[in-house]
C-alpha cells in the first residue's frame, strides 16, 4: 500500500473537481453584484451550476485540466526523487480515471501518449524548510488562461510605462485589457515585479497559492493590488468578456530584485476555474489536513 500515491491521487481528484472555498465565495459575491437579466448574470449562473455539478460528480470542473504544477514544502533530507516518481505515477493513474484529460503533447512530434507524463510534465517545485512538515500544493492551470499571460519589459513608450509603480500599474491593466474574453474571466492575476524572465513568471504563479481574500503585507503592493482590482472592474469587460461588473476576482502581486538593466513585470492570468488545493502529509504519507 503506497500512502503517498493514494494521497497525491486524492489531491489531484479534489483539485480537478472542487473549486476552493475562497474562490467559490468570490464567485457567489460577483453573481450577486451583476445586474439581473444580463448575459453576464447568465454566465455566472452557469459557472455556479458547473461548480456544483463537478463537485457532485467528482469530474473535472473544466475539460482543460491544464499544466500540472506541484509545489512541495519539505524538510532537509526529504527524498525528492521518490516523491517525483510517485507524483508521476499518481498523474498517470488520475488520467486513467478521468480526473485529468490526456493533456500532455510531445512538442516535436505532436504525439499525445495519454499519460500526462513527459519532459517537464508534471512540473515539480521543491522548497526546503527547517521543520518536519511536508506540504504539497497543486495548481492545475488551463491553457486558455496561460496563453493570455504577458511579460513586459519596462520602459514601454507606447503604454507610457516607465520604471516605477505607475508604469507597473499601466502594464498590468494593459494585460487585463488584452486578456478580455480569452482567459475565461472573471480572472485572478498573479504578478511579479522584477526578477528575470524565468523567475518573474515563476514567482507570478506562486501568487496563486495565496488565499483570494488575504492582504499583501507590503503596503505599496497592497495598494496596487486594490487599485488594479477596482480599476479593472470599472472597465465593463465582465464575465467571459460579455460586459458587466466583474472582470477580476483578485489581484496578487509580489516583487523580486532585478538587475539594474532589466525591469520585468510578469503577469499570469488564472481563469475562474481556479484549481488549487493543498495537503499536509503525515509521517506515513497520509493526508493530515487540507490547506484550503
Amino acid at each position, binding site marked *: 500500500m503506497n500512502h503517498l500515491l493514494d494521497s497525491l491521487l486524492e489531491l489531484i481528484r479534489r483539485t480537478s473537481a472542487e473549486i476552493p472555498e475562497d474562490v467559490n465565495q468570490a464567485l457567489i459575491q460577483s453573481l450577486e453584484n451583476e445586474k439581473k437579466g444580463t448575459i453576464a448574470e447568465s454566465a455566472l449562473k452557469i459557472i455556479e451550476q458547473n461548480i456544483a455539478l463537478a463537485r457532485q460528480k467528482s469530474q473535472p470542473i473544466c475539460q482543460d485540466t491544464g499544466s500540472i504544477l506541484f509545489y512541495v514544502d519539505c524538510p532537509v533530507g526529504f527524498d525528492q526523487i521518490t516523491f517525483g516518481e510517485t507524483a508521476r505515477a499518481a498523474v498517470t493513474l488520475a488520467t486513467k480515471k478521468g480526473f485529468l484529460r490526456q493533456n500532455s503533447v510531445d512538442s516535436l512530434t505532436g504525439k499525445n501518449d495519454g499519460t500526462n507524463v513527459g519532459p517537464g510534465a508534471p512540473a515539480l517545485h521543491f522548497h526546503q524548510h527547517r521543520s518536519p512538515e511536508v506540504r504539497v500544493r497543486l495548481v492545475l492551470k488551463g491553457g486558455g488562461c496561460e496563453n493570455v499571460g504577458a511579460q513586459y519589459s519596462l520602459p514601454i513608450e507606447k503604454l507610457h510605462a516607465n520604471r516605477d509603480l505607475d508604469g507597473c500599474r499601466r502594464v498590468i491593466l494593459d494585460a487585463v485589457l488584452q486578456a478580455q474574453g480569452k482567459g475565461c474571466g472573471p480572472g485572478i492575476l498573479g504578478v511579479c515585479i522584477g526578477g528575470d524572465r524565468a523567475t518573474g513568471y515563476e514567482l507570478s504563479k506562486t501568487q496563486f497559492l495565496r488565499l483570494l481574500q488575504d492582504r499583501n503585507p507590503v503596503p505599496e503592493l497592497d495598494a496596487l493590488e486594490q487599485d488594479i482590482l477596482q480599476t479593472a472592474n*470599472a472597465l465593463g469587460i465582465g464575465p467571459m468578456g*460579455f*460586459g458587466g461588473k466583474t472582470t477580476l476576482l483578485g489581484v496578487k502581486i509580489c516583487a523580486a530584485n532585478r538587475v539594474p538593466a532589466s525591469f520585468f513585470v510578469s503577469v499570469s492570468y488564472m481563469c475562474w476555474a481556479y484549481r488549487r488545493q493543498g495537503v499536509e502529509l503525515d509521517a506515513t504519507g497520509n493526508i493530515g489536513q487540507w490547506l484550503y
Partner: protein
Amino acid sequence: MQRGTLASGFINHMIKLSFPFTEEKIRALKVGDEVLISGIVFTGRDAVHKYLHEGGQLPPGVSLQDGIIYHCGPVMMKQADGSWKCTAAGPTTSIREEPYQGQIIHDFGVRGVIGKGGMGDRTMAACQQDGCVYLHAIGGAAQVLAECVKKVRNVYFAAEFGAPEAIWELEIADFPAVVTIDSHGRSLHQEILNASTAELTKRL
C-alpha cells in the same frame, strides 16, 4: 442560489436553435441573443482547422453543411461496451482558429461556430457573407456542457490527432450559448473592446 439544474429564471427568454441550422434561422439571430442548441455538432480545434485549411478532406460521414463546428477538446471515457461517454466538454479558445475559420465556413457551408473568447475580422466577414454565427459557450463550464451531450455518435481522426484534437460527432440538447458575432456585421467582442479601452484611457 439554485444549483444542479439550469436555473429557471433565465431559461425562458432563450431561443431554441435546432438542427438543421438553416441560413434563415441563423440570419434571424442577433448579437446578445441567448440560445439553446439541439442537434448534431462536430468538434474541431487546432489540428483539424489547420488540416482542413491545408486542403485536407473531411472523413466519410462528416458533413459541416448547415452544420455547427464546436471548438472543444472533450474528456471522453471509453465504456465497457465500446461506446464513449463525454465527461467534460467546455469550449476552447477560438482565436487560434482565426487564420483558418473564415475559409472553412465558406468552403464547408458551416452555419455556426461554438467556442469561447470570440474571433476576428475575417471570421466576422465570413459570418456576414456566408450566413454564419459565432456562438459563445461558457468557458470552463465543462460539466454543465457535458450534461448537454446526450450521445457521442462517432469519433474521427482520433489516432492521427489524439483524443482532445479529434473530430467528435456529438448529439447535444439545449446547449446554452450566447450569439457574440452575428451575420449582420456585429461583434460583441469588438464593441466591448472599444468601450473598455475608452474606460481604461480615462483611468490612466
